[in-house]
């Protein structure tokens, strides 16, 4: 086949007299031209961009999606309601502790140039329906460095928030300490951290948002102290700057080093939030932490905008859903007569619902929080805050997948020390905000390997038992599949422990048990029949309080009937526990384990 070649075969346009006559002269001002500043170039992808459009659309490159640094007032406008920001502490006088030549003049020049007081603006912000003390830094002002005014304004804002019982949100953007001020700058790190400690001790929420760049003394003080720490995608976050590190160690740093994604992977961020979603995420977080510090007795699960009585009714009733009709008495009895070994096999079935299925069925509005803040984020544990019938609860889920790929990603639900430490961090966060903790257990056991031992697998599990025994909020643990030994117990030292009919809970896998006692893993069936590891057996032994019957074929399609009962029981559990004092709760939990 030969195609038609069109090149140079068409006639060109012949000017009509009335158009040609006008010539090309015209007014020079009328000739098409690009005015200065109309277009600029993206410093990331080098493509040309329409400046005004980029500014209107949140300072984001339309080509590569890269973020530009944002002037502080634009940032505030993006986060707050119109007229929803009342600025605090304007016009503080600059000091020059080192008598650094030209420093006050430079500050004065920047103040005029950007119509800005300093590298931070603080004030009272209205974010959706929520109020918070908000501090936002501006990198244009001496690279957002922390001098005495920055430190003072942040400290005052935090102190004021403590007095007003308000949450604090700080958006960092800073190169670190302000060299021109010497030691005065270093002291700001201590001062701001101390103010945040008092704010935290008052039971108040602090959300830290890290934007590009957050470095040095700012990272090493207020930026890393949030109850929740979020970052913008690809933001550079670190203590020592990448160039300093490269020079010191004489090596090139890997791509993505010290970027937000790197920090998330290493457990220092709760999440990465795109710029245009930040306001919604902040509002959601504020709502989930709403008003729980106020002289409330511990673990009074206070649902949003409801009185205590209404809340209790909501917990018990399930808000008018058909669940009300089912009383606990109507709960199905365990009638099946499977052998323990059969139950072990069912507990490991591939099509059995996994943690995330329950997360969707039992709760709403789940917000995942990442990281142990010590160096890792374990993919085998999903943790975060969700709503149960309107009440915020902290949910910790041992994660199994539905395919081999998914299971490799979440390590078949086998947690590492960083997983237990993430769980502990979120438990303590729940305690601070008087929020019940609900754990979903499904693990063959804690991760077995060199790395896990190096980082203290045993210590991490022990620490969880130690802390859980005294956690001042209700703790509930539900075993949905495999409860493998200490790896499961670290999420199952609770006020009540429940199991699904065909879940198992044991000191060791039957295979391991047989291998240790009889040196033959193939005797697993005999071991299972001996170990008393099934739900009915453990209920009889007083290890668990409640067992939920399963339909014959238990899959995501048939799980609703079971979940209905679980929801009803969770409602009862929370309502019951909210009537107890902290002391009663802890005493009961102590006795629960003391008896063994």
């Amino acid at each position, binding site marked *: *086949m*030969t*195609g*038609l*070649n*069109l*090149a140079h*075969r*068409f006639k*060109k*346009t*012949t*000017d*009509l*007299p*009335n*158009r*040609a006559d*006008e010539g*090309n002269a015209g007014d020079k*001002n*009328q*000739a*098409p*031209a*690009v*005015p200065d500043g*109309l*277009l600029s170039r993206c410093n990331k992808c080098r*493509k*040309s*961009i*329409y400046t*005004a*459009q980029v500014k209107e659309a949140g300072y984001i490159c339309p*080509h590569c999606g890269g973020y530009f640094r944002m002037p502080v007032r634009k940032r505030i406008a993006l986060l707050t309601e119109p007229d929803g920001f009342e600025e605090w502490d304007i016009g503080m006088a600059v000091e020059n502790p080192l008598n650094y030549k030209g420093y006050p003049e430079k500050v004065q020049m920047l103040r005029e140039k950007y119509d800005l007081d300093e590298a931070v603006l603080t004030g009272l912000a209205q974010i959706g329906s929520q109020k918070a003390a908000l501090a936002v830094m501006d990198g244009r002002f001496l690279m957002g460095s922390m001098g005495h005014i920055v430190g003072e304004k942040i400290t005052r804002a935090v102190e004021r928030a403590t007095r007003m019982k308000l949450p604090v949100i700080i958006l960092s953007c800073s190169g670190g300490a302000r060299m021109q001020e010497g030691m005065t700058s270093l002291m700001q790190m201590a001062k701001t951290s101390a103010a945040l400690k008092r704010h935290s001790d008052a039971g108040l929420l602090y959300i830290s948002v890290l934007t590009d760049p957050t470095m040095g003394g700012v990272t090493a003080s207020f930026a890393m102290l949030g109850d929740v720490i979020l970052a913008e995608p690809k933001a550079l976050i670190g203590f020592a700057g990448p160039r300093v590190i490269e020079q010191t160690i004489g090596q090139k740093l890997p791509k993505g080093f010290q970027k937000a994604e790197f920090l998330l992977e290493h457990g220092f961020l709760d999440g990465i939030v795109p710029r245009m979603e930040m306001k919604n995420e902040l509002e*959601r977080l504020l709502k989930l932490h709403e008003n729980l510090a106020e002289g409330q007795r511990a673990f009074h699960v206070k649902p949003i905008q409801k009185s205590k009585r209404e809340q209790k009714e909501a917990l018990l009733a399930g808000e008018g859903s058909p669940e009300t009709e089912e009383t606990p008495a109507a709960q199905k009895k365990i009638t099946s007569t499977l052998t323990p070994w059969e139950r072990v096999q069912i507990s490991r079935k591939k099509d059995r619902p996994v943690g995330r299925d329950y997360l*969707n069925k039992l709760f*709403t*509005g789940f*917000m995942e929080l990442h990281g142990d803040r010590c160096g890792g984020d374990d993919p085998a544990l999903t943790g975060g805050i969700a709503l149960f019938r309107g009440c915020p609860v902290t949910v910790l889920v041992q994660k199994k997948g539905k395919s081999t790929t998914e299971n490799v990603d979440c390590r078949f639900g086998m947690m590492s020390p960083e997983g237990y430490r993430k769980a502990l961090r979120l438990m303590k966060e729940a305690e601070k905000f008087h929020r019940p903790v609900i754990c979903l257990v499904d693990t063959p056991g804690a991760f077995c390997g060199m790395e896990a031992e190096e980082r203290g697998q045993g210590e991490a599990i022990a620490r969880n038992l130690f802390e859980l025994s005294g956690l001042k909020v209700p703790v509930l643990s539900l075993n949905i599949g495999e409860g493998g030994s200490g790896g499961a117990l670290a999420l199952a030292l609770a006020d009540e422990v429940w199991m699904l009919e065909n879940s198992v809970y044991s000191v060791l896998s039957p295979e391991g048990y047989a291998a240790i006692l009889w040196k033959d893993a193939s005797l697993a069936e005999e071991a299972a029949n001996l170990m008393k590891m099934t739900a009915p057996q453990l209920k009889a032994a007083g290890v668990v309080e409640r067992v939920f019957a399963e339909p014959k074929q238990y899959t995501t399609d048939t799980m609703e009937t079971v979940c209905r009962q679980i929801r009803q029981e969770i409602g009862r559990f929370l309502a019951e526990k909210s009537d107890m004092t902290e002391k009663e709760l802890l005493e009961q939990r102590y006795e629960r384990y003391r008896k063994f």
Partner: protein
Amino acid sequence: MIRKVLIANRGEIAVRIIRACREMGIRTVAVYSEADRSALHTQLADEAVCIGPAPARDSYLNMEQIISATLISGADSIHPGVGFLSENSNFARLCEHCNITFIGPDSQVMERLGNKVTAKQTMQAAGVPVIPGTEEPVLDAQEGLAAAKRVGYPVMIKAALGGGGKGMRVAENAEEFEASFQTAQTEARQAFGDGTMYLEHFVRNPRHIEFQILADRHGHVVHLGERDCSMQRGHQKVIEESPSPALDEELRSAMGKAAVAAAKAAGYQNAGTIEFLLTKEKNFYFMEMNTRIQVEHPVTEWVTGIDLIKEQIRIADGEELPFAQEDIQIQGHAIECRINAEDPARGFLPSPGTIEELYLPGGKGVRIDSAIYSGYTVPPYYDSMLAKLIVHARTRQGAIRKMKRALGEIIIEGICTNVDFQYELMEDDRFLEGNFDINYLERRNVK
């Protein structure tokens, strides 16, 4: 005065614009992506500038490159065509800042009409009927029940943050409302973490009727009658015709007046289209305004005898419309079929590739707007339309016969097309009767 136009588009619409310019003695500059080097529009224009790699976002959607191409080639104006940047108010604004005549409305009007909420408010204020709905968010079922009564059943319940059909339910009556609302809200909460809902009157199986308008810079606005675009498949128009078999003179006049009022209310200039939904009871509601030329503009050109592209250029040049509403006469009946590179046997999957043999029909009352030729390779990057076949006859029946005759002559070898599917539609009883709505083709395909 416009002397040189850069066409920021490709395919048949770019060719259509180049042809109009040539007849007016206006020089043309084509822009093309690396995949369109041998495309007809690239070859046909007086000059051509490459603006980037094949993906549209790197070429035909790259505003800055197109502005650069305009300045380099010395063009004084840009015709955006359809799709791509044609309804991007930022692009129109960029042209304004650079002293480039944008052949279309000005950027502010475009922006206002591009926002569904403000567009609806503008139309309501101008007395143009809009679909009744709640303006304030609805948070619970009781509140919703009262609002639903005002809106009128059936009611569509929609999540404020909705998308992809999630958090969306239709309630037929008050009995159903509460359950539907709960389900939709629960779904919305689960999917978007937010239970803010809106209600809107639900129009079942309406027709899509649109009115072409022209507005000059001197305050004159006329409408050029309607196009019936109800023959759709997967939200894509398949067949368009003018006049619509569903309108009588009285309704045409009422809708035409509403269209003119809508354009005036928006302060609109240049060619535009007002889309209406028409119910079985012959109620019509404003849907949106398209602030550009449309693919199906030739059917209007044929029944009115007006060249819409040339009028667009004249209006952009500041000329007055050379006719008034009473001069517009709708004559005969025109139908357009879109010929696409797609495979009806495989769910209308796009079918790019090389056209090995090509024969396109002609004869009295047959027009073909296309950018294909023998040996042309249809690239996979852009939409799959190959050609528009438009016919004109004295009556609708005559036009359908002519269309069937012309479709029967088309030969396109090497790729799959929907020509046979279109041919079948010319024998479809419901189409012949003129008795169809926007969901008819979907229902027919299911059968």
